[in-house]
């Protein structure tokens, strides 16, 4: 088994007197989809924001590719190669797919310093093709004309462009229909197959079982268990989410608050 790209050890985070993360261990491996599950308030969002640099961590170790790093802001995280695809996709409706994928990182012609539209369109097309995206007719479509699934596709494909190492997807299928959910899950799988460490936040157990290699279950600010998806079933995951333990897995009853 390879070393994890991202490893967190004993991460703590408090907001005033409220301790949201109580020493969380978490790891994400390259080429794998790690599902991050947990009930509302378990600390999923906080953990993700700590990884992405939106929040600074109070204590614990943040290791990236085996080396301890300090992430002070979102820019530090993207410099490392960590991308977060938020639920509200952060796309501009009035711009087309290419323009959105390169937003803030536009390619310029070396001589004239003008936008290199041809190069950007070419790269955007390649990124979509590498993910076997067939649902998009033209990369020059305005985002306003895209369906929810297509928008999600664009947001995810953006991470391929930037050679991200860790991609965090926050509830990518929450607002989608059945067919589009399947498409997006395919996409998630392909991201991992390209060698990225994908972290998938989801409430949908079917999605989790279908696409993930590992499941990390948060329970009341602690990591209940991080296990291979193939070794658990849906009932066990649900128990981990709701009770923090399931049979031999999970937190000890007396150590639940540790």
């Amino acid at each position, binding site marked *: 088994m390879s070393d994890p790209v991202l490893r967190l050890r004993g991460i703590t985070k408090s907001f005033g007197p409220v301790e949201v993360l109580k020493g969380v261990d978490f790891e994400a491996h390259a080429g794998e989809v790690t599902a991050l599950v947990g009930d509302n308030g378990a600390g999923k969002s906080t953990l993700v924001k700590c990884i992405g640099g939106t929040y600074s961590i109070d204590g614990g170790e943040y290791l990236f590719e085996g080396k301890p790093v300090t992430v002070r802001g*979102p*820019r530090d995280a993207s410099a490392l190669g960590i991308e977060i695809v*938020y639920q*509200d*996709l*952060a*796309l*501009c*409706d*009035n*711009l087309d797919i290419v*323009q*959105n994928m390169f*937003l*803030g*990182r*536009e390619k*310029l012609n070396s001589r004239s*310093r*003008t*936008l*290199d*539209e*041809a*190069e950007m*369109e*070419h790269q*955007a*097309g*390649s990124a*979509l*093709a590498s*993910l*076997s*995206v*067939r649902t*998009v*007719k*033209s*990369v*020059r*479509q305005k985002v*306003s*004309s895209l369906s929810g699934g297509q928008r999600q596709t664009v947001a995810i494909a953006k991470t391929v462009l930037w050679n991200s190492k860790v991609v965090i997807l926050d509830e990518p299928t929450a607002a989608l229909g059945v067919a589009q959910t399947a498409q997006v*899950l*395919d996409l998630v*799988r*392909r991201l991992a197959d390209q060698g990225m460490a994908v972290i998938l936040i989801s409430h949908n157990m079917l999605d989790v*079982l*279908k*696409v993930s*290699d590992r499941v990390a279950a948060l329970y009341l600010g602690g990591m209940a268990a991080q296990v291979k*998806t*193939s070794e*658990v*079933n*849906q009932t066990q995951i649900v128990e981990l989410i709701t009770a923090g333990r399931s049979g031999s897995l999970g937190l000890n009853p007396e150590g639940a608050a540790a």
Partner: protein
Amino acid sequence: MSADTNAVTRDAVAEHEAANPAANVTALIPQTLGGTFRSYVRGVRSGETGSVPAVVGALVLMVIFGVAQGNFLSSSNIVAIVQQSAPTTIMAMGLVFVLLLGEIDLSAGVVGSTAAAFGAVLSVKHGMPWYVAILGSAVFGGVVGLFLGWLRAKLNIPSFVVTLSAFIAFQGVQILVINSKSNGVQVSDQTLHDLYFGRISPAAGWILLFAALALYVLVKVVQNAARRRKGLAVVPVTVLGLRALAIAVFGGGFVYLMNIDQSVAWQQREGIHQWGVPWSSVIILGLLVVLGFTLTKTRYGRHVFAVGGNEEAARRAGIRVLSIRTSVFVLCSALAALSGLILAGQLGGVSTGDGAGNTLLLAVAAAVIGGTSLMGGRGRIVDAILGGVVLAILQNGISDLLQGNNASAYELIIEGAVLLLAAAVDSVSRRTRR
């Protein structure tokens, strides 16, 4: 069971991929003339109305006024319309930037004329040459815009309030700048007059048209070549050729009309000609190229669209929203200053109260009639020109058509109704757009 599900999905994906490797997605560009036309019609019907309302409006108005008054379509009246459209058009060009962010600058008219008064004072009272007057005026506008933009972007005061305050306050500043009992400052510098009245020689008009056409073709050819190198879909040559032809025909017609000699009998005896493309049109063409380039070909322009489309997305993409927001007010006020100077050229100086009234709202109307959205995120520089021409046609035609005591009352009512109509078209097209 779960392992099975997993394996099945992966196998299915692999199989699917092997069966049909995805082609590189590129832009969907229709490759025939018919296809280009159909996709354009489809775009218009789905709310991408673009220039259609403005062009249709201009044609309808020209037919109505042309039928109603014999001399409306005379060459001298057309030149007058072109000249009259200039101040509104240039102010509207600046407003396009502000409107793209979904903001409004209600002060542009007054600030523009105040800046022009500042330039006029430099020229008349301090004897500065014309270029110092223009530069001083533009800097005055830019500084005011910087202040307004800072109030909006940094202090987060709604632009409506910031610029309405400036609209009132700068009417006072204007009086102070003019500082005269005669309620105005007269411009004597010939160049400043020529900003409005000046004409270039007929030959220069043709050369300029040829240069513009050559530039257009060159840019398109280079763009197509770059796309072909990358294996991307290109615009077919026939479509490009037709577009160039349209520009040539329209531009040629324009230059021809402008070049008709309007000199009267005594001028002809003296060898004086009244002909040529107006300076103001040359200035507008220059601004169209420079500002259009800025908006569509530079990183800055792209970021203006992004902030107007989704501010949060722009911020997350690392765009400095604050500076973008401030900059559009600087641009708008600086262009308003230029607009004010051209207006001063027309009126022979700046009087207190110039630029107040409906100057600003007409410029907003021009941008919106041309197709720029009031809600942000959509707009082009050429919109300002189209809308400016439509309004100039309307004003020119109406003022001759309506006679009697209440003529100016009806004129105001009609102008207001047109602005409302343009905003309605914007709202409706926004709703139908998917």
